[in-house]
């Protein structure tokens, strides 16, 4: 692959000192790619991606974005640096209108640019237009994800980082969300996502990593990983992959 956008080296992170959840994980994301991070429940996927976004304290390793060291950057500076994060749950402001949810994220844009940028987002996500005055908390699960993604994209990020975009969604919305992500990549945006729903994520991904016990244990081309016996062994350790789809809906953000 070409230019590296995100380069994470030997990342160690955790909420409490001396109790690392991420234990030396390394990944790279190249320009225009969709990279998927898979792993069994409790592998530290969510903490890994939150640490990159500045939300979990980093205790070791480095994160480079476009060659710039962003390891110590506070969470609120990430959008300015070019990294837009979409949390797994509670990723919209429920009492604010859809439009205000978009506007509040525009802090780093030029004031003149904001109205046009919001219209561009409505053009890309037509479902949101009709709801622009609706409180975001009244949106359906799928529409919430759309709004969260639109809000992340509005600031022209170099990389879009998503924590389990399919979590808690019904199967209909899951496919909708992944189609949306595939569409976003076609428009030239680089994407890194963590997913429980391995099948759906690998279907749209270019490359994938398998994270086990806070370390990256395997890497490969997304389309090949689905049938890779090493992955089955690592990822499925405790339970068969088929059970994943039915069990994941209710398990929230434990990973």
């Amino acid at each position, binding site marked *: 692959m070409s230019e590296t956008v995100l380069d994470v080296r030997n990342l160690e992170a955790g909420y409490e000192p001396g109790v690392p959840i991420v234990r030396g994980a390394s990944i790279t994301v190249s320009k225009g790619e969709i990279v998927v991070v898979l792993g069994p429940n409790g592998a530290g996927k969510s903490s890994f991606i939150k640490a990159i*976004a*500045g*939300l979990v304290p980093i205790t070791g390793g480095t994160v480079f974005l476009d060659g710039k060291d962003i390891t110590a950057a*506070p*969470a*609120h*500076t*990430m*959008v*300015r640096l070019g990294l837009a*994060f979409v*949390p797994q749950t*509670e*990723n*919209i*402001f*429920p*009492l*604010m209108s859809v439009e*205000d949810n978009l*506007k*509040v*994220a*525009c*802090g*780093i844009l030029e004031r003149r640019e904001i109205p046009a940028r919001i219209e561009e987002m409505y053009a890309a996500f037509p479902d949101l237009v009709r709801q622009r005055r609706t409180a975001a*908390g009244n949106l359906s699960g799928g529409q919430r994800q759309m709004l969260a993604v639109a*809000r992340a994209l509005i*600031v022209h990020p170099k990389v879009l980082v998503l924590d389990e975009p399919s979590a808690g969604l019904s199967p209909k919305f899951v496919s909708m969300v992944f189609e949306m992500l595939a569409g976003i990549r076609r428009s030239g945006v680089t994407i890194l996502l963590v997913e429980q729903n391995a099948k759906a994520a690998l279907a749209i991904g270019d490359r994938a990593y398998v994270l086990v016990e806070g370390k990256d244990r395997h890497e490969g081309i997304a389309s090949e990983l689905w049938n890779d016996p090493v992955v089955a062994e690592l990822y499925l350790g405790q339970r068969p992959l088929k059970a994943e789809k039915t069990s994941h809906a209710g398990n929230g953000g434990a990973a």
Partner: protein
Amino acid sequence: MSLQFIVDGLLTGSMIGLGAIGVTLTYSILRFSNFAHGDFMAWGTYATLAVVSAIGATFGKVAPIAPLSFGWPLIVALVIGMAFTALLALLLDKVLFSRLRSQGQAIIVVMASFGASMALRSLLEFIFTSRPTYFSRAIQIAMPVGFGIRITPDQIALLLLTAILVLGVHLLMTRTQTGRSMQALSQNAALARVVGIDVAKVVRVTWIVGGALACVAGVMIGILVQIRPFMGFDMLLPMFAAAILGGIGSIPGAVLGGLIIGLAEAGAVQLIGAEWRAAVSFIILMAVLFVRPIGLFGVRER
């Protein structure tokens, strides 16, 4: 019964409402009940009084503006007093609240605000004594406006000032990026950081707005009633009642809550006697909370 209680109630309600805006903002954005808020009122009032005296000493006696009991020195002093109170709130946050807040236990911050409240009040008593004082001792003639209601020019001016300030804060909250950031922070602090909001900056704006409005409310009390070190502390319960009645986090709610409590208190004084004043506002508060536990304009926390 005389309808005069409407004017009295609206005035008391304005003072309570302006104070309650600060209480409700602090609660929804910083997630703690600031019991020192009343003392910001008192400090703002004494600061304003000090500036008025300083202006008087420098420029000699200044004639009041036509029908009002005060002249330009009080207006200038109020602006300076608002800035001073905002700075006082910022300072208290820096040396006390922000350090305790980082430890993550709201009750510790609440208790600290209790301590700060007592310290601030005692300091005022030490500097200015506990003897009541006034901005002006001039007696104003109340004008009859019909239905047996009388109102003074000062009272009209202060009601207008309240309306302008409330509208201003409401527009700040709903129409500006700063206001949206404040709303965002009150709804989800982690997500606010993710979308690029500098939490420290929003916290500063919260203290500035709350402190400045507390000063205005205090000066209103000073003009219409009297200035005492306890003037703010005595407003604490009605302010919290107004904030809760209106729904925590809601600016229009805080003001409406203030007006309801102000009117109820004034009405109660007429109907059942002054000693029931405080009880009536709390009975209304409890009645509303029974029917609507989140307050009038409140929104359910998920």
